[in-house]
């Protein structure tokens, strides 16, 4: 399955969706999160962290660009919000590890980090609490991941 869409109606439901993604994630995977300010990118990532068994509170990585958490897999949580218009290789890839899961928010501002295969998640805020998640799998591993999610 290449595409999958789902609507969540609360923060808890978004966390649950993330948790499923986290439980199914495999080493070396990359998830790209797209959506406006307040769409719910960090909230979904909190759920992913929970699914990976991360104990520490996952908070917005905007200020430091990257935060690292330890769970079943190491979670590299990257936020390229501040990188808009910056066309430089920042060497963040040096800190990423094939054994971990990389989640990139605002990935369009860090094109160099985007691999050939990935799962992209586009989040749209429908109204107060409803959010639509449109997921796109690029690569077989990610297609299987979406099958599991369904």
């Amino acid at each position, binding site marked *: 399955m290449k595409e999958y869409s789902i609507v969540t109606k609360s*923060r808890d439901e978004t966390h649950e969706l993330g948790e499923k993604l986290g439980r199914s994630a495999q080493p070396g995977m990359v998830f790209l999160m797209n959506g*406006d*300010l*307040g769409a719910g990118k*960090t*909230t979904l990532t*909190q759920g992913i962290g929970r699914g990976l068994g991360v104990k520490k*509170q996952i*908070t*917005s990585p*905007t*200020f*430091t*660009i*990257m*935060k*690292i958490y330890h769970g079943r897999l190491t979670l590299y949580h990257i936020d390229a*919000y*501040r*990188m*808009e*218009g*910056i066309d*430089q290789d*920042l*060497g963040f890839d040096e*800190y990423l590890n094939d054994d971990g899961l990389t989640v990139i928010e605002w990935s369009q501002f860090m094109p160099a980090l985007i691999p050939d295969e990935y799962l992209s998640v586009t989040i749209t*805020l429908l109204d*107060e609490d409803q959010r639509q998640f449109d997921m796109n799998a690029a690569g077989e591993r990610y297609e299987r991941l979406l099958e599991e999610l369904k």
Partner: protein
Amino acid sequence: MTLILAIESSCDETACSIVKDGNEILSSIVSSQINVHTMFGGVVPEVASRIHVENISAVICEAVAQAGVTMDDIDAVAYTQGPGLIGSLHVGVQAAKTLAWQFHKPLIPVHHITGHIYANAFVEKLEFPLMALVVSGGHTELVWMKNDYDFQVIGTTVDDAIGEAYDKVARVLDLGYPGGPAIDRLAKQGKADERYRLPVPKTADPMNFSFSGLKTAVLQLDARLKKQGVDVVPADLAYAFQETALNSMVRKTMTAVEQYQPAMLVLAGGVAANSRLRQLVSEQMESYPQTKLVIPPLKYCTDNAAMIGAVGYAAWKHHAFGDFDASADPGLEMPCEL
């Protein structure tokens, strides 16, 4: 007499300071990059790192010269090991290690936030147990200190830091970067208006903070009003945001003061420069006369190296030395016995 040479480069200030006995600043040099980053609407890591490299040697030389000392007089070299931007931190870490190696001085790795708390030692002698409300672009934390080198985080943001929420709301209102001072100024001209009512942040743990939902609510309200053809008054929206964010934060802080009964409450970090926050805390602390309140002067709220020297002195007394293998740690945790 103990002289600490301190280096800070965790974000966009390159700074060096010589501090005597933890509370007297012999020199404090800060080279700010804020003008460069204003162009980009935020700190840009690679740019920051490059400018740190360009500045650091001159800043160190100037700090030593202004203090009227030589490297022989220095007892230890303290530096910010984390948290912060990895590339920026590396520059300060490398400079500190080089100096310590060359001049045979002990190294003291320091957590940036403990420095912000210790900036208050230049205002008044710190009294323990102490509660600190740390508020900045990357942090929103209540820190409980049983003694002078134990930092227990009893409350933290579960999503965005307060300064980050200010920056993002400011971006939506087209107020530029950094957003904190801009919203603070604008909110002064605003007034309470039912139409701009925002939800009070809720957290499962009453000591924790949350600003992500509030940020989203501001964006949604702005979009909804515009769609209805209502002319949004930025000052009133800024007022509503600031009042909601700060009142929630101050209420939690007062709960912590009530529960823990510290000898002293200190504000720390960049957002401690916010005039409304200073006013709210001052007013509400009048109900707790047994706790002394310290609000740092504006010059100690922003990043500087003197504060790293102050906490470095506390670390020195506790023999909390580091070694030459240490590297920058963007996810560093504060020293805590628990």
